[in-house]
């Protein structure tokens, strides 16, 4: 069977998806990266082999902050930024989409689409306030499973008002509210509201959010956030079936133009791959150079400003 592979190596999770010619997802995996993207990819690959048997890969697309790393080890035909990948995937699923709200582990994006073309976008820059990692941290602190967080929020009667400008302040404000006697549900709902306010302040800034709005990325799993958005904007937020793997699907869709794939084959899951890094000492820039090793052999190097280490491994 012919299929296309999409890989989204995000900051927190690694997504792998297999689609057919028409863009239908045949198989997918959604796993925590746990700080080891290569291992995460390898385990996803062996699971894919077990689950799907023999398939012919016709194209590979990678995206996410680890897209380059994934390209080096898998051999990709299309290495795309997350914004384009998410847009392509959303347009494929809902062709008349006008706004995409995407919140992932470390970053959040707002993408505006008119007539099937991206016309504007924004992305959080330095601050991670209002992203999945923060929610996860708070859930752990409150002793709630991250999957349950949304249900707590929905059960709230009067959400507490929590300062959401900065995660550090949000946390101390949450503690303050809890010591004042607010119940857990109200605090969690307040947290969702704060995250939404923060998102709108940082990203939308006067950009027009118009229907239909798609809400995707890992945080879309949280019905509390969805409800806060809908309350704040008075608009319906559509959460697509494949919300956490939309980026990976987008990358796979983009790879459908490939004529001759650069895919390195399934042997990846058995290889002994490791990464290492060192600081180059040839000039005061002291670039951190990263390398991937297959046993003792260096397959790829990057991270140097001048490019000499990168060239050496080509």
């Amino acid at each position, binding site marked *: 069977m012919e299929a296309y592979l999409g890989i989204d190596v995000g900051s927190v999770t690694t997504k792998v998806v297999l689609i057919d010619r028409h863009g239908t997802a045949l198989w997918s995996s959604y796993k925590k990266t746990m700080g080891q993207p290569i291992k995460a990819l390898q385990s996803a690959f062996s699971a894919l082999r077990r689950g799907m048997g023999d398939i012919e890969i016709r194209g590979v697309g990678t995206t996410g902050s680890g897209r380059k790393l994934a390209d080096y080890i898998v051999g990709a035909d299309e290495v795309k*930024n997350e914004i384009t990948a998410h847009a392509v995937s959303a347009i494929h699923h809902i062709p008349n989409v006008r706004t995409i709200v995407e919140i992932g582990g470390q970053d959040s994006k707002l993408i505006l689409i008119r007539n099937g073309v991206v016309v504007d976008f924004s992305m959080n*820059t330095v601050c991670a306030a209002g992203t999945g990692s923060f929610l996860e941290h708070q859930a752990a602190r409150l002793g709630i499973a991250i999957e349950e967080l949304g249900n707590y929020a929905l059960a709230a009667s009067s959400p507490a008002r929590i300062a959401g400008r900065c995660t550090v302040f949000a946390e101390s404000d949450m503690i303050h509210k809890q010591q004042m006697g607010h119940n857990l549900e109200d605090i969690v709902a307040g947290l969702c509201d704060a995250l939404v306010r923060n998102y709108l302040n940082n990203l939308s800034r006067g950009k027009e959010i118009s229907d239909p709005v798609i809400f995707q990325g890992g945080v879309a799993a949280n019905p509390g956030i969805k409800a806060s958005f809908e309350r704040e904007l008075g608009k319906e937020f559509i959460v697509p079936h494949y919300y956490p793997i939309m980026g990976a699907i987008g990358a796979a869709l983009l790879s459908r133009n490939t004529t001759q794939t650069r895919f390195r084959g399934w042997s990846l899951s058995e290889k002994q791959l490791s990464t290492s890094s060192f600081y180059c000492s040839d000039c005061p*820039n002291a670039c951190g150079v990263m390398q991937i090793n297959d046993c003792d052999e260096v397959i790829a190097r990057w991270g140097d400003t001048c490019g000499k280490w990168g060239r050496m491994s080509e």
Partner: protein
Amino acid sequence: MKLTVPHMGLLSVAYTRVLRQHGVDMQPPPKATIKTLNLGVKYSPEFACLPFKINLGNMMEALDNGADAILMPGGYGPCRFGYYGIIQEQILREQGYKFTMSTTDNPDRLSDMIDTIRDISQIRNRYDGYSVFFLILMRMAALDKATALYHYHKPREVNRGDTDQVLKQAIEMIDLADSYTKLFRTMPEVKKMYKAIRIDKSFKPVTIGVLGEIFVVIEPFANLEIEKKLGELRVEVRRGVWLSDWLNDRFRFRPFRRNQTKYATKLAKGYLNFASGGESIETVGKTVLFQKKGVDGVLHIMPFTCMPELVASAVINRISKDREYPVLSMTFDEHVSEANIITRLEAFVDLLERRRNGSISRY
């Protein structure tokens, strides 16, 4: 006296060799690296802008290398920049450095520049002062010309990296051209070198106008080599701010080049009716110009905490809305995340490409 001047783009290439010939013992700061930035950040006020920090780092490295005099442009300044020299001097003295400092009081006035040159060099004759100063200006214009050719050739090059090599060579050649005659002979050579690069002539790259605060625009170290990055994404850069234009607006050494500040001010009418400092009026005016000329989009870059450009950024957002014209603003400082910059740049280029092709037909 070993004299040092903080870097600003390629400006030091324009003056160092010429001034050395006239008896100025020049000690230019080493090329900016992470070490320069770290030094600057460590001793600068947190909310000073990136140019301030890099300049201070330049000064410290030059002083460590044996320089004992600093020349810093100053005066009433286009923004806070006018006071930078004074504050940097104080910081350096507190750190125990021994040096003499001079700031040019009035960098817009020709006579002031000539006096500065006569002060630091062995030139006594006023006429010689003019001659040297205009040679420096012409060399700066030549360097800018070489850079503009780079912008044209980089996205079209067949062998990756060829154009970068040529630019490097061109800068060296212009550096060696230390008289009017040599300079006039060098420029055709530079053009010939660019012509020899193998390029894909049928390729029509996406064009992006690069605008913003002048230091961040012209200093590759400050903007994480954004023009090279764009070139590698196969984008043709149309830079809207040039050091030679800034100089030409003040000293009129290129009679056939119109005054860019006045031109931008005219174009900006209706959006920004007065100069609000820095390059704000240029940013606004040239955004309008690029839109009219059919440049695909504008990339607006500035240092974090830059007031004039922040004003401009709000104004060009309105232009963007009015005329449905894509504009992307980015701020730079020592905390900037390169991954984030690259993602946004790539997405912006994708946006422009798809917008030009008008549909989702590619998927």
